[in-house]
């Protein structure tokens, strides 16, 4: 009986005008979106390779004098995420590189600077199409699942037979969804084939598994919207009423809720920008450096003020030995103070930012669309997980470079109490060709699922609750 209903629903959809229309839309837009994204990705990879090559050349031509002069700037580039062909996510807004200097870290420009104003609406990539176009089509497909049969009277005819209502509902959802899913799956495969033909690294590492997760997430997302539409349809007596409700709900979930959540979070927990924090850290580092220089000058004057001439240059003199010990103490204490105070700024910023982001995420997850976008962006390496990993990689690289490069040259600035400054250098040898490379640890699927359990829960909620609500409405529906 259930199979009969599924088959009927599928056949009815296939015979209607909307099936070929949707098939055409999916078959044109999805492969086209993937093709355009792949071209864009290939261009970004070429740019990345070129910039990395230039940066490596620039680094190998550095000398110890450049380090002493404080003019060294090492760039760490982020490699474009291959699966950004499915969703750009933060790909356009993340800095393409970070600059590592003795003064600290500076973010480079993002690739969004090259994009047109229209890209503010979102790139027409696969996730955009699923989120904005296919979700609406899923709702429209579902709009008349129950209401259409009520309106046409065919529901009376069906229910006059020995068919359980739950079999009717589940059969109609299964058949209706299959009619939506089949062209979608076909278009996805065509898009994938296109990527393979274009030489996209589809079969690298965990890429196939991630592509499969993208496909399954999209299928679940569309099913969630289909069941949502079914719920509305089961609650409406007319398809037109269902359509109006569907458009309102779609607008809320797609356009309002995701944006509103970021705005609300920013209002509830205002956070300074990264540039402001970076500036504050630079100022603090400068101020601490000056304090240290003053302390060095004061101690130097105290030790060598009444010492015999030449004591400062005589490594065996008791004053020089004392000075070396005091200087090491000052530098150790300055380093600790700097680490602690700059770390405190970073930690405060991170906490504030995390609190704001947590609130935004939690609010946005009311929308299945946001849950889907967050999950897929993380799978594709263009989401919040990647942003966090990028930030962590930048901090780790800064520490590594500090040990391998910047700390090899010690600049000893002294400001004397009686006026005047003096600058001394001590340097260890540096192999500029063997400087550590900037890398970001890729996120595994386990990392993605761990970071996205709320998104998964939200999708599950939107899968189960609307169906349960539709079930209750339909079981209790009085046929008149």
């Amino acid at each position: 009986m259930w199979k009969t209903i599924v088959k009927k629903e599928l056949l009815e959809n296939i015979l209607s005008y909307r099936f070929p229309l949707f098939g055409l839309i999916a078959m044109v837009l999805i492969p086209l979106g993937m093709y355009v994204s792949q071209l864009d990705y290939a261009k970004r990879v070429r740019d990345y390779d070129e910039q990395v090559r230039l940066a490596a050349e620039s680094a190998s031509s550095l000398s110890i004098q450049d380090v002493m002069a404080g003019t060294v700037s090492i760039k760490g580039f982020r490699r474009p995420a291959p699966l950004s062909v499915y969703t750009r996510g933060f790909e356009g807004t993340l800095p393409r590189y970070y600059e590592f200097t003795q003064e600290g870290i500076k973010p480079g420009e993002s690739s969004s600077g090259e994009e047109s104003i229209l890209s503010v609406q979102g790139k027409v990539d696969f996730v955009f199409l699923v989120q904005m176009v296919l979700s609406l089509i899923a709702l429209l497909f579902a709009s008349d699942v129950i209401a259409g049969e009520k309106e046409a009277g065919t529901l009376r005819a069906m229910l006059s037979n020995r068919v359980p209502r739950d079999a009717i509902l589940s059969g109609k959802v299964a058949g209706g969804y299959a009619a939506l899913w089949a062209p979608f799956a076909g278009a996805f495969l065509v898009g994938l084939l296109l990527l393979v033909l274009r030489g996209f690294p589809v079969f690298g590492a965990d890429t196939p598994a991630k592509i499969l997760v993208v496909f399954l997430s999209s299928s679940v997302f569309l099913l969630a919207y289909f069941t949502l539409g079914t719920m509305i349809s089961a609650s409406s007596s007319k398809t037109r009423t269902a359509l109006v409700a569907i458009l309102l709900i779609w607008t809320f979930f797609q356009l309002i809720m995701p944006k509103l959540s970021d705005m609300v979070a920013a209002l509830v927990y205002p956070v300074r920008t990264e540039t402001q924090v970076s500036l504050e850290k630079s100022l603090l580092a400068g101020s601490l450096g000056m304090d240290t220089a003053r302390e060095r000058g004061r101690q130097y004057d105290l030790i060598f003020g009444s010492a015999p001439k030449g004591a400062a240059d005589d490594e065996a003199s008791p004053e020089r030995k004392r000075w070396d010990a005091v200087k090491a103490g000052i530098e150790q204490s300055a380093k600790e103070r700097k680490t602690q105070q700059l770390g405190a700024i970073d930690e405060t910023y991170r906490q504030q930012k995390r609190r704001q982001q947590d609130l935004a995420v939690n609010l946005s997850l009311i929308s299945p669309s946001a849950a889907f976008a967050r999950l897929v962006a993380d799978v594709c390496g263009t989401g919040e997980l990647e942003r966090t990993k990028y930030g962590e990689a930048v901090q780790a690289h800064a520490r590594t470079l500090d040990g391998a490069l910047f700390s090899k040259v010690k600049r000893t600035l002294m400001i004397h109490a009686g006026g005047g400054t003096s600058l001394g250098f001590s340097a260890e040898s540096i192999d500029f060709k063997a400087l550590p490379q900037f890398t970001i640890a890729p996120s595994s699927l386990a990392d993605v699922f761990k970071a996205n359990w709320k998104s998964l829960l939200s999708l599950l909620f939107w899968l189960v609750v609307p169906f349960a609500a539709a079930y209750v409405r339909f079981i209790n529906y009085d046929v008149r």
Partner: protein
Amino acid sequence: MTDLQPILKADDLSKRYEDGILALDHLNLQVQPGEVYCLLGANGAGKTTTINLFLNFIPPTTGTCFINGIDVTKDPLEAKKYVAFVSENVMLYGNFTARQNLDFFAKLGGKTALAKNDYYQVMRRVSLQEKAFDQRVKNFSKGMRQKLGISIAIIKDAPAVLLDEPTAGLDPKAATEFLEIMAELKNEGKAILMSTHDIFRAKEIGDRVGIMKEGRLVMERTRQELQYEDLVKIYIDYMKSEPLSIS
């Protein structure tokens, strides 16, 4: 006929809707195998509500419906095995052909092993034109749809048939053809309950005729009794009479 077990039986059946309207008030009726029972009445008299209750489309407020001895409220799915339904505007899937519609509803009715020819045979029986068998239903006239609706009822081969104003909007020829088919079904032993506004055809086909007013069965006559009475006059007299006091 009265010695037989009724296929359709309404036992003290009442229905009050959520808005407080009493649509059906303590209805008692029985339809025996091979009997046609016609329910007459104005709009809102309770005819369709009676059919809806037999089909368990709505739950009764009090009373019980039985189909083939099965309590419809207690075991609706089992009860529906024994009943076929034809509505006023036969509702079909417009994008399906006549045969596809017949196939779908036949399967819902439990007939899963029918061949193409079986469908054609039934459609021929109701005089549906051959060329229409594999045409999409959306272009069918009301008469053609009604014939297909009856085909669906015939193919289910249930002992009871419920018809909700089946001749409304049919031209005289189509209505006559329809009554001929009803007569055939009656001769096959089906119990037929038909709600209608059509007094003339009710008198022609009905073994018993009941008049409903404001949810009550206010009159019932057998075919024999109606030979000596004017059904039109009785009907009009009841319709003109004072409203019933319904609490």
